[in-house]
């Protein structure tokens, strides 16, 4: 019984490993939009984690919602998009709640080469448009 308790505790404690809620990176981009976006995202209660990337003048905002809110994904995504469009013009902004896009953004956070980053961003945008 005690072993089971220890196991359960371990599982719960692993869940508590604190990571920054919003991570951001800019590649050959100047301007303070990123900080603004970060502030906005931190205030959002529905967001579990987010990665924000700016490559040149294009923005990618990849979000993971809190688990129970996945049912309201679409409406939350469009709401957030409207809020973000006040900071960044619509054409340059991509917002996604998709796990794949979040995973790719996390990889992109570590990308140092500007050209590669640009390529990766283009790939991600193409992925976003894919239909079943």
């Amino acid at each position: 019984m005690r072993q089971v308790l220890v196991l359960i505790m371990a599982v719960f404690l692993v869940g508590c490993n604190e990571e920054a809620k919003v991570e951001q990176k800019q590649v050959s981009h100047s301007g303070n939009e990123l900080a603004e976006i970060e502030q906005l995202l931190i205030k959002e209660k529905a967001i579990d984690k987010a990665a924000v990337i700016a490559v040149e003048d294009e923005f990618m905002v990849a979000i993971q919602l809190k688990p129970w809110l996945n049912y309201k994904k679409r409406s939350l995504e469009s709401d957030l998009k409207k809020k973000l469009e006040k900071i960044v013009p619509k054409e340059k902004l991509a917002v996604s709640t998709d796990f794949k896009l979040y995973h790719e953004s996390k990889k992109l956070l570590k990308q140092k080469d500007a050209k590669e980053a640009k390529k990766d961003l283009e790939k991600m945008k193409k992925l976003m448009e894919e239909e079943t």
Partner: protein
Amino acid sequence: MQQSDYEKLEDHFTPKPPIFKNVIKAFVIGGLFSVVGQAISIFYMMFFPFTEKTVGNPTVATMIFIAMLLTGFGLYQKIGQFAGAGSAVPVTGFGNAVISAAIEHKTEGVVLGVGGNLFKLAGSVILFGVVSAFFVALVKLALVSIGVISW
């Protein structure tokens, strides 16, 4: 003895199925299948260019394939005996239905036996799936053209 009398007698002697226990079993095993499915879809998203939108198809195909293999090795029947509806209702039940029909009719030959009976059970799944998808699409088209929802 009247038929109704006989039915009463039969009811009296038939053991009551442990419904609650069966429901719990089906829930747990069906849930485990879903966990495996989720793991597969996360695998596809991490290592292949699939998004949450597009990952459904390869995941379903993989799950059906695994169920087909398990059926061929005779393992799925054991799971089915234990879990009941928990193993029949998810998409894996489809793979099981196809392969078990194929195994059953193997002795009748490849073309008329296996070929003719492969979709004996699963055929109705495909038929009603396609038909209901068609009607759901019609309803959605109507709602979109009225302007209630968007694609």
